[in-house]
Every structure is written in C-alpha cells, then in structure tokens.
C-alpha cells in the first residue's frame, strides 16, 4: 500500500514558457499597435476638447423636427426601393454565377476561377466606390445606387449561394445522373431545390445589408435618404437630421425583424 504523498502526478504549470516564435510575434503585434496609434494622432486632450462640441450638437438634435416628414418619408421609400431592386437583380445574376463558382457543378475549371474572381472582386470593392463609379458613368440618382447595391450584393450572394450549392448532398444528384438527366436538369431539379432555403436566407441577409448600405449612398449622390441627411447636416439643421436618423433606424429595424421572421419560418 503506497501512501498518497509523492504518488500524485506533477501538475502542469498555469502558464507554459512561450516559444521563441510566439514571443517574437507578440512583440511584433505590440509594435504594430503602438505604431498605428501613433500614426493617427490619437490624443486624449483633443477628444476632451471635442466633448463640449459633441454635447452641443447632440443637444441641438433634440427634439427631432418631423416637419419635413413628407419628403423624408418619400426618400426613405426610395431608399427601400433601391435596396429591393438592387438585391433582386443581384440574386438573379448570382444564381448562374454561383453554379459556375461551385466546386462540383462548374462545367469548366476556367469558368470556375473566372466566376470566383468576379464574386471576390464585387465583394472587395466597397459599396461607396461602386456608387462613385456608377454616379460618374450613369449619372446622379437612384439608378446609380441600385447598380452599386447590386454589385455589392453579387459579392455576397454569389459567395453564399455557391457555398450552399457545394453543400448539397450527392445522393439525389447521382440518382438523376443515373436516369440520364442533363447537367442543367440535375442542377434545376436536385441542386437548386436543396439549396433553396439557404439561398432565400442569404438573399434576405443581402436585403438587410442593402438597406443599411443604401443609406450612405446618398452621400455621393447615388439617391436615397443619404442626400437628405447630408443636406441637413451641412445646413446645421440638426433637428431635421435627428429625425432622419430616427427614420432610418426605424426602417432598418423593421426590415431586419421581418427578414428574421421569414428566415425562422423557412429554415
């Protein structure tokens, strides 16, 4: 019989001695953080000096002035319409792109890489830059905004549709292949039905995203409520601005709630 003292296995320490690469990356990371803070003129005193100004602007924002509710409402509807139109166009265009960009469905490796590149490009270029591009090419107004929203949503839907398509189980596809169905027949009859719930959910997310982005597109003249907001701010009409911000907030809330409800239903 052995006594318990001494027979206990040694407990590992709370912390392990860091390895050399680990130590090095920690130092490098700390260096990047310090360098970044230094580069942007981070200063507590400037922030403190700005505080009264912030308080003043916020103070001038209350009470919100809803006297221009009519034109605000109109622009808000236009913003929503832009988001819907942009998203629907994007969903329609994303369908074929996603089939080409899905491993296992793409008819040719070249098409696969090309469509992946298109989707990545759409996603990585920020919406504001798309908006500037389209304002320059098709002119000021909501149409430029719709195109910008569409490009961004293609980047989003293309990627998630392709992922949904890749995740579809192989069995039913093999079943139809054995029947002698065409590639198109297999995609339409087995892949798309199986990926549908996930694609509808992605499309609703894209719509929510588009509603949020469409607000800022007005800043560069691509239509929507953003124009009203910049104008109000530029003219120091802070009470109108706060009314606009509240209206935007309400619209985004409603869209997100509805979309969440639909998504909960279909999943």
């Amino acid at each position, binding site marked *: 019989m052995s006594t318990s003292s001494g027979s206990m296995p040694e407990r590992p320490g709370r912390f392990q001695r860091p390895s050399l690469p680990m130590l090095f990356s920690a130092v490098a990371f700390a260096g990047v953080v310090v360098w970044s803070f230094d580069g942007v003129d981070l200063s507590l005193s400037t922030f403190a000096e700005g505080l009264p100004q912030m308080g003043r602007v916020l103070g001038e924002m209350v009470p919100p002035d809803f006297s221009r509710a009519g034109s605000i409402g109109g622009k808000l509807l236009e913003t929503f319409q832009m988001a819907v139109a942009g998203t629907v166009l994007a969903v329609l265009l994303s369908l074929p792109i996603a089939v080409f960009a899905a491993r296992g469905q793409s008819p040719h490796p070249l098409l696969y890489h090309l469509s992946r590149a298109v989707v990545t490009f759409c996603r990585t270029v920020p919406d504001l830059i798309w908006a500037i591009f389209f304002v320059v090419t098709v002119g000021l107004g909501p149409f430029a905004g719709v195109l910008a929203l569409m490009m961004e949503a293609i980047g989003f839907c293309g990627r998630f549709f392709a992922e949904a398509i890749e995740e579809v189980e192989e069995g*039913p596809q093999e079943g139809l292949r054995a029947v002698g169905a065409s590639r198109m*027949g297999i995609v339409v009859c087995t892949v798309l039905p199986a990926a549908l719930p996930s694609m509808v959910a992605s499309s609703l997310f894209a719509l929510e995203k588009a509603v949020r982005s469409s607000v800022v597109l007005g800043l560069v003249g691509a239509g929507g409520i953003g124009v009203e907001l910049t104008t109000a701010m530029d003219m120091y009409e802070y009470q109108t601005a706060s009314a606009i911000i509240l209206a935007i907030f309400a619209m985004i809330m409603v869209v997100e709630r509805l979309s969440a409800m639909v998504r909960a239903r279909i999943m």
Partner: protein
Amino acid sequence: MSAQVMNDPGTVHELGSVRHGRGEQPPAVRVEGLRKCYPGETRYCLRDVDCEVRTGERVVLLGSNGSGKSTLLRCLVRLIDCNGGSIQLFGEDVLTCPSAGLRDLRASTGFVFQKHNLVARLSVLTNVLHGAQSRCGGPQSWFQAWAPNWLRDEAMECLTRVGMQDFADRRADRLSGGQSQRVAIARSLMQRPRLMLADEPAASLDPASGEEVMSLLTTLMREEGTTVLFSSHDVDHARRYADRMIGLRDGGVVCQGPVTGVSEDDLSALYGQVA
C-alpha cells in the same frame, strides 16, 4: 478448397452447368477484365472482373461489405469511371460511347440505390416525373406543375403500379424508408428500362418492407421482361428473387451460377469462415 478459390479471383468457379447459347441476342450486361482503383487508393477494388447477365435474367451480386458490389454496379453506367476492361450493355460499348449516347444508355437502365436518392423537397409525383428526363428532354419533366398531362398521367400510372398513388402530392422527405424506395422504383419504371440495376435496395429497410420492395421490384420486372441485376448480402433474398448469382470477394468474381446450386462451401468462400 474454397481458400484457394478466394485467393485467386482470376479463376471463376462455375456452379452447375446451365449455359444458354450465346446466339443471336447480345447479353444485357457483359463485363470483361474490369478494373477499378479509386483515386488516391493503392488497392484495386475491382480486379479483372468478368461476368455476364443474359437478357431477361434476374441475377444477384453477392458479397460481403467492401467486396466491390456498389463499385461494379456504378461502373456499369459510368456513374464512376473504371481503370480498364470493357463493359457492354445490350452489345453497346459503355466505356467508349460519347456523352449523348451515354445519356441514352443511362435512360434505358433503371438504377435503384440503397438510399432511395429522391429529391427531398419535391413532391412524390415530381420525383417520379424525373424518370422521364432523358426521354423528354427539356424542362417539361422538371416539375409536375408544368409537365404536360400525358406525362403526369404516365407518372401516376407508375405510382399506381408501386401502390403509392395516394401519396402523389406528399413531399418526398415525408415518406417512410419503404415508401421512398417504392417511389424510387416508380421513377425507374418511368424510364421504361431494358435493364434494372439495384444496389442493395432492401438493405436499409426492416425485414417486412425489404421483402415488399424486393418482391415488388422482381415482379414488376418480370411483367415487363426486364433484366435485373441487384446486389445484396442477404443470401435468403438472393435465393428467392434471383435465378443466378455472381459472387464477389475482394473485388474479384469467385463464383457464378444458378442460385439453386449455391452450397455452404460457396458461401463460406464468399463471406470467409462464417456463412
């Protein structure tokens, strides 16, 4: 003696001596020297398989798990590619035919899978319509909502033959395993197949449903005079639903012949020590 046989898949142990003349009609299936090695694997899982299924015959492919039954059946209609040998269905070369010809070959060959492989979110009727995809071409057989009436009637007829006519509107994922398998058979009927391949169609079903599916499959095919090749590891099913057996072990054919001539020795050659 059986140990010798199983170590050398090249020698085929003929059971009985029933041999029909290979005269005017080409056999439904003729496989010669078929080899298959999955990419990334070192072992061949089909090694020089030679076998034949004559027109109108019901043949069972027997063998233990991993013996290569599914692989062989899939190779027959090129659901997977093989690495050598030759395959002929009704005299037509499967491995060299162009993709249009391949689709025709598949269209005239039914395939029932162990897992029914129906499209879960679509209705039973639409799933059955899909059997006509190669024959009709184009979108008319994609969804029952826009299929022409004659096609929907035909699908209903196929459903009636498997006793599933009352479930036409039901979504395919709301069916039991046995019901799904019957719908899968109806989809194959829609193809009006000359040859029916079935990969352990009863393996994932309970004994009663399995029995039902096997007898449905073989009875229907007998009515049509369709050739049947099914795999199974149920010796009892093999004896009752097939005329002839092909025994696979480790990717090689170790015996073939009429099911009535199957002895315990043959089974132990197939399944190792325990028959």
